[in-house]
């Protein structure tokens, strides 16, 4: 599976091709695609994303139908047995990932997106006001994420938009700090000063000079926060504040079937494995992107 990535067309670095210039982001991704950890991470991530997205179509029976005795052992017709109410574990597993993704993906995008906007703005227009804002965010940061989420969900009830909102809110201060740190280094660099000296408008400096240079950290942050989102939402599901029964949900499955962990573990184990594999996969991808970003910077200096 790794051989196709060795095609000469994908080799970007010192090849000095005179072809059309690629965008900075495409160049980053193409170079990362040559790293083994990126390939493995991407394969793991795509496997679980594929299961979660296409699973409902492939489920052999209805995820809410009672088809066997409670905690029935795996058999030919039910490869992973039945859960605590006698529903097919495999079907519930295939159907239970979509809700997790539908909440964690937008939550991550919104949280990191807002954090990026706030962080880069704070770095570029550094003043006592932005510093005061950052300290306020530190207060928010001191609040445990899950407790914050629980607070809102217990008051307003487990609604999907609310889950997205609280998870995004949990990410916001952290992402702001990370991207402010990354952008603070960039705004001190000479090419930004050069742009300021010729009178380039601040918005152009932000989008053309600063943003492309934090794209690496941004991708890493997205990957990392995505795994955190999955963690928080699965935890809320486990605590009963996610999707409500009888709907299938990985977090809910873990909590429903935990009593049978010793003699019929599949109801718990399948969602646990899926979440773990997804987390590891996304982290490998994020790590590869981080390495490539650092490598491109290092190449500049030794040229």
């Amino acid at each position, binding site marked *: 599976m790794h051989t196709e990535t060795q095609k000469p067309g994908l080799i970007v*670095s*010192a090849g*000095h091709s*005179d*072809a*059309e*210039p690629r965008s*900075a982001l495409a*160049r980053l991704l193409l170079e990362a695609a040559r790293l083994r950890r990126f390939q493995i991470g991407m394969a793991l991530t795509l496997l679980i994303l594929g299961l979660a997205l296409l699973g409902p179509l492939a489920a052999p029976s209805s995820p809410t139908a009672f088809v066997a005795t409670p905690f029935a052992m795996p058999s030919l017709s039910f490869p992973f047995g039945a859960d605590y109410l006698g529903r097919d574990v495999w079907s519930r597993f295939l159907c239970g990932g979509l809700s997790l993704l539908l909440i964690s993906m937008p939550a991550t995008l919104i949280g990191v997106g807002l954090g990026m906007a706030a962080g880069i703005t704070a770095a570029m227009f550094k003043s006592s006001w932005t510093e005061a804002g950052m300290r306020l965010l530190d207060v928010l940061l001191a609040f445990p994420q899950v407790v914050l989420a629980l607070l809102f969900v217990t008051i307003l009830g487990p609604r999907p938009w609310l889950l997205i909102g609280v998870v995004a809110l949990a990410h916001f201060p952290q992402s702001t700090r990370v991207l402010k740190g990354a952008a603070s280094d960039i705004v001190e*660099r*000479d*090419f930004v*000063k*050069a*742009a*300021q*000296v*010729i*009178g*380039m*408008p601040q918005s*152009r400096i932000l989008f*053309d*000079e600063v943003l*492309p*240079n934090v*794209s690496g950290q941004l991708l890493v942050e997205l990957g990392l926060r995505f795994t955190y989102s999955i963690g928080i939402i699965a935890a809320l599901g486990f605590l009963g504040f996610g999707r409500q029964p009888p709907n299938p949900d990985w977090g809910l499955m873990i909590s429903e079937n935990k009593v049978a962990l010793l003699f019929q573990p599949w109801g718990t184990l399948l969602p646990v494995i899926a979440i773990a594999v997804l987390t590891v996969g996304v982290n490998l991808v994020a790590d590869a992107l981080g390495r490539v970003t650092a490598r*491109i*910077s290092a*190449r*500049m*200096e*030794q*040229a």
Partner: protein
Amino acid sequence: MNAVASMQGLSVASIATGAEIIRNVSLTLARGEILGLVGESGSGKSTLGLAFLWHTQKGLMRRGGTVSLAGSALATLDAKALSRLRGRVMTYVPQDPARALNPALRIGAQIRDVIALDRNNTATGDQRLSELLGEVDLPHDSAFLRRYPHELSGGQQQRVVIAMAFACRPAFVVLDEPTTGLDVTVQKRILATVKDLCRTSGSAALYVTHDIAVVAAIADRVGVLYSGSIVEIGPTAGVLRAPVHPYTRSLLAAVPTATPGESLAGIPGRAPLPDQRPSGCAFHTRCAVSEARCAGELPQRSTPTHERSVWCWRAEDGVAANVPRASASVHERRAPAHRAGVLSVNALTAYYGAVAAVRDVSFSIARGEIMALVGESGSGKTTVSRCVVGAHSAYVGSIAIDAEELPHSAGKRSTLQRRSLQYVFQNPYAALNPRRTIGQTLLQWARVLCDDTAAEYKQRIATALERVGLETRYLGRYPDELSGGQQQRVAIARALVSDPAFLICDEITSALDVSVQATVINLLSTLCRDTGLGVLFITHNLPLVGSVAQRVAVMRAGRVVECASTVDLFRHPREAYTMQILQDSPSLSFLGTVNRE
């Protein structure tokens, strides 16, 4: 010859690519001898220095070869035995003393630690400590010993590191660019100290540097490294006065010698990376006298004179003679400024908070003229340049183009004013956005500074690239795909896009190799002559000024101490300070004398 340290046929290769960084190098050092090893960036000189101490950096491996030191072959020793030798029999002085010293320990404790390693030491630790501090010219009172590294100047820190390296009177010391980053006056004294220490303790030293002028001042013999191989080695005076290898000759022709009006000759192309090295002689693709044989086979060693070895096919033909040290002077070449205009700075005093970093500085530059502003670190020269371009607005006094006074900050200046005054930064890799192609960067500058049509932008970019001698195919490249010299050309092209009247160049060659520096300097001279550009050339390198500028202002502690034409300043410096930095600048001026006679 009683060899103290010798390396035979050593190669070091990258584990990942298998490319050899160091290729089959043999070196021998006698007791008390200083061997200067000169090489440009990427030549493998630091790797070679470390390999001599039987150390390889991460990602590299030794491939064949032996090193023997004071009679023992290092290959036969285990890790424990090697570590007993390190710090005692073989020692190392790295480039950056601030990183070599432990910031959390007092100076005295750090030096004593090393003295304690010496088992042959008959004197007590404290006796040796005060003796050692005297040798490296540091105060040996207890107050000084109780200081932490950050409380010392860069020169003092390097003296401490040198004291530690020589504490146990080692047989062999490797010094890797120990004076890079220090001012010339400090550098000169440190070189003298190292020389004395080698003589008194009988240590052999390998002095690794990119600066031939430094080698001239310190080394008994000099070896020239190119792309991982020694190309020429022999006694210093002989190699520098009568170089045989074409690379040595070209390198010497690129070094400024503090002679007003001399022209420098750069080396075309760039040194090959270890995995892209051409077959045969690695230098043949850039060599002016190469022939078919050079591309085919690795050159054999020849000994043109006593004690000299050269690896060049053409060494015996004597063809390598007459690598031009061009004689056309910048003064003769200087064309009348065909566009009127003067940039004048009047009574400039610039502040950081309440501190005046620059006091009462005045000068003016006509179009078509290059004026140099010279000073050591902290003299305020960069502050002056930042005021001129409007990046630092806390100043009094006036900066004007013709009679029109410029607003203090760049933001308040008109587009026209910003267009006519452009800035080139010291480090091209920091000054170019790594995430944008050359074409995108140039287009952006054109768009911000000039209000033209798309076709005119294209024309401007093409003209700017042509002026700096780059082809349009570079437009699609990213900065990290270019060499350092090419990056600096792009940075200059970016400044030329708006067709400015004046260019402020802040140490633009200090991050470049000398052979590349020469090509950038020639480019600037040509631009001034052909387009009537006025240039403020800021540098710490006084010898270089002779090849660049028509006039010089020398700065010290925020003031201009002397301002004169280059010829007058070099021949009859008036101020004691100017005389001193002229004397202290390591230079190959004796070569200039030889050539002229």
